[in-house]
């Protein structure tokens, strides 16, 4: 069989760095081909070269036997190449149907009925109930993802590139996404699937190509490889152990919540020990982040009590939460955690800047020492602390957010999706850090949608479902099935 899309000896240089080096790869019709690599391996550059967003310095692209020096967004669309990026390209304030049929014309005037019917037939094919007349901003993130896919289907994509499509999805939604991808496969559509989640790749992909530092490493059949092999190809070394163990749980209770109501959560009671890593599981929308925001004082508790080291507290704002020793590493790094246009040093010190000041004036020397200390401690990789956070990789950005929180001397830390969208190497560092923090006597509440992370890192797990506590699992009973069962239980 002939490849539908081939990249031949593609090189892309940016001033000072080479992003892709002599990169060649073939994609065949009707295959689901996963691309795997750490952040900075060059995956995004590769996608952009295929879609025509950027031009390579050397090499060529062959699509349907036609050779091109470079793509343009226009040509790639005409050839049926569609990309679904991590950040959606949807127009919030217009209807689902209009988004799906965006850029198309049916005759001289807008034909809403045709758009509606076209959208509905695609959704029916997917077996998903979304009202095409609903505005995009009113539907859930996972449905927005489906709309993105429907858009590509509507344009009769031959090659569909998906960049981390499951990041915003819950477990059951991932299942329906995979059903959709399988139906593409049957129709001969090539799906290029980019994901950090290796278990997903084993579930959906036929082949997996690994890239590292802008270079092509290898293409393997998913049936004949293993997780361990893939990871070692990705990082260029084999990781001996995936999750460091935390054996430092004490009997002392650091935080206890009794019958909490508020922010959509109802009657939630739990506790966490000093030195413990408590996993919080649940589907998207189960009320996990909502619980974190209640504890951190972002939203107001309507009813219930919170005790910190035995003393009842009444937290009304993040400022007070910090005073009581609670720290939050929020779920959306860029929107809630970082000040992207400011320097690393500035970011690390901002939450504790008042403590670094005397008579209103910031003590620059103390600030330097503080940021240096956390750079060393968290191994933030940067030539200078004066670097803008925007220029850092996702993993290093996350470390900056953690540093900012640690600098406030919090000892009850809430990590909301601590490793979302960061590469394998940085993930390991974050895990190691969490265990270190627990060893030092911090209590860690870890909210995560990553099943392996949840089971690998937690000392104990609580599961939420529809805003309520569905159950608690002790480490000896840890199993994926049990978590899923509780998470989808109706209360």
């Amino acid at each position, binding site marked *: 069989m002939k490849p539908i899309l081939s990249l031949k000896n593609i090189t892309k240089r*940016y*001033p000072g760095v080479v992003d892709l080096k002599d990169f060649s790869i073939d994609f065949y019709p009707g295959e689901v081909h996963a691309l795997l690599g750490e952040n900075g391996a060059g995956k995004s550059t590769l996608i952009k070269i295929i879609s025509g967003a950027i031009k390579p310095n050397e090499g060529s692209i062959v699509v349907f036997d036609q050779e091109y020096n470079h793509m343009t967004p226009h040509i790639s669309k005409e050839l049926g190449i569609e990309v679904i990026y991590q950040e959606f390209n949807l127009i919030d304030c217009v209807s689902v149907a209009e988004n799906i049929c965006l850029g198309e014309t049916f005759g001289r005037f807008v034909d809403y009925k045709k758009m509606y019917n076209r959208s509905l037939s695609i959704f029916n094919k997917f077996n998903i109930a979304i009202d095409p007349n609903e505005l995009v901003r009113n539907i859930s993130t996972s449905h927005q993802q489906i709309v993105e896919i429907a858009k590509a289907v509507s344009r009769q994509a031959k090659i569909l590139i998906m960049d981390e499509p499951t990041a915003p999805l819950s477990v059951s939604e991932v299942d329906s996404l995979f059903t959709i991808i399988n139906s593409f496969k049957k129709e001969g559509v090539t799906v290029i699937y980019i994901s950090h989640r290796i278990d997903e790749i084993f579930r959906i992909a036929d082949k997996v190509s690994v890239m590292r530092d802008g270079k092509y490493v290898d293409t393997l059949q998913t049936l004949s490889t293993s997780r361990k092999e893939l990871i070692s190809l990705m990082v260029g070394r084999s990781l001996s152990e995936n999750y460091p163990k935390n054996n430092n749980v004490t009997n002392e209770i650091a935080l206890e919540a009794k019958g909490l109501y508020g922010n959509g959560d109802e009657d939630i009671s739990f506790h966490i020990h000093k030195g413990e890593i408590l996993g919080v599981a649940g589907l998207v929308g189960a009320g996990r982040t909502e619980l974190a925001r209640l504890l*951190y004082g*972002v939203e107001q508790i309507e009813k219930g009590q919170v005790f910190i080291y035995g003393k009842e507290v009444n937290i009304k*704002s*993040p*400022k007070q*939460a*910090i005073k009581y020793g609670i720290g*939050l590493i*929020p779920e959306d790094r860029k*929107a*809630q*955690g*970082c*000040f*992207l*246009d*400011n320097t690393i040093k*500035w970011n690390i*010190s*901002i*939450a504790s*800047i*008042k403590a*670094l*000041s005397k008579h*209103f*004036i*910031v003590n620059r020397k103390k600030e330097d020492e503080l940021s240096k200390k956390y750079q060393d401690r968290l191994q933030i990789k940067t030539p200078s602390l004066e670097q803008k956070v925007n*220029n850092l990789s996702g993993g290093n950005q996350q470390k900056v957010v953690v540093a*900012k929180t640690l600098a*406030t001397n919090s000892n009850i830390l809430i990590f909301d999706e601590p490793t979302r969208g960061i590469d394998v190497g940085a993930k390991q560092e974050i895990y190691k850090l969490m265990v270190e923090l627990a060893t030092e006597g911090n209590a860690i509440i870890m909210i995560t949608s990553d099943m392996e992370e949840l089971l690998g890192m937690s000392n104990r797990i609580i599961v939420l479902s529809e805003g309520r506590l569905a159950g608690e699992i002790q480490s000896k009973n840890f199993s994926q099935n049990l978590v899923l069962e509780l998470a989808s239980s109706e209360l």
Partner: protein
Amino acid sequence: MQKTAQLRGQILDFAKKYATIIVLVGLIILFSILSPYFFTVSNLTNVFVQQSYIIIAAVGLSFVMISGGMDLSIGFQMSLIGVTTAALMKWYGVPIPLAIIIGILLGIGLGLINGFASITLKVHPLIITLGTMTVFQGASYIVSKQSVILNLDPAFKFIGQGYVFNYIPFSVILMVVVILSANFILTKTYFGRHVFAIGGNEEAARLAGINVNRVKLIVFALTGFFVSIAAMVLFARSGSAASTTGPGTEFTAITALVLGGISFKGGEGKMIGLFTGVMILAVLGNGMQLIGMGTYAQYIVKGIVFLSAVGFDTYQKLSKQKAK
């Protein structure tokens, strides 16, 4: 070969970084060549005296803009503060120092009104101050009884017209003190960091434990404070007080700030940029006047300079993004 290329790169970087300052120096050189009267002590002093109130008002506005907000009402704040102070002095016999203090407190109060309104109504300050602007306008005309309060006391006029040691205009001293203290607040204190934080990412600022509402209130109060000083300088310089004095300052100030790199989205800005921004507009105005260009032709040139500056800035940011 490589060395010259490197050097060229460095020069280009330098030019990008100091673009506005280079434009200002260029304009000064240009007008010095075109007119023998431009580069003289008396003319340059004059430029500074004319601009001092705008700079002080722009400093006030810069706090709001760096925190991600906007204040369209500063022109009418100045109008209301000016006529109130004048009326207290001339019509109600209030001693000058007390009248000035009341004027300044009024400025802080007006700022707090803006602050409270934008916090409680949760609407963008641009809209809020569009509303309060009209309120202040009405209040100003009621206080002044739509008349011009003439012959302000010489002691008061000193603020805008006086010289210290016969050489240095008092208003220029005030201007320098205001710039330096604003610079101090913004760059040296934790409060300054909080202002930048809120403008950079309000949600992240809240989660970092910053009391966002309180910082916003203080920012608006500071704006009112600086605006009241600007009002004193402006009214003292004109020697009489009318409600029509002041309005229009907001747009000059916004133009100068954007020119000086203090963007609408907040989170960035430096006092040196503010100063350069105001001075570019001032030198342009003054220089074009001296070479005999008409007022309306001046408007056109100023508009074009403004748009080119903004365009250049966006272009620079885009090319930076592309390089990534």
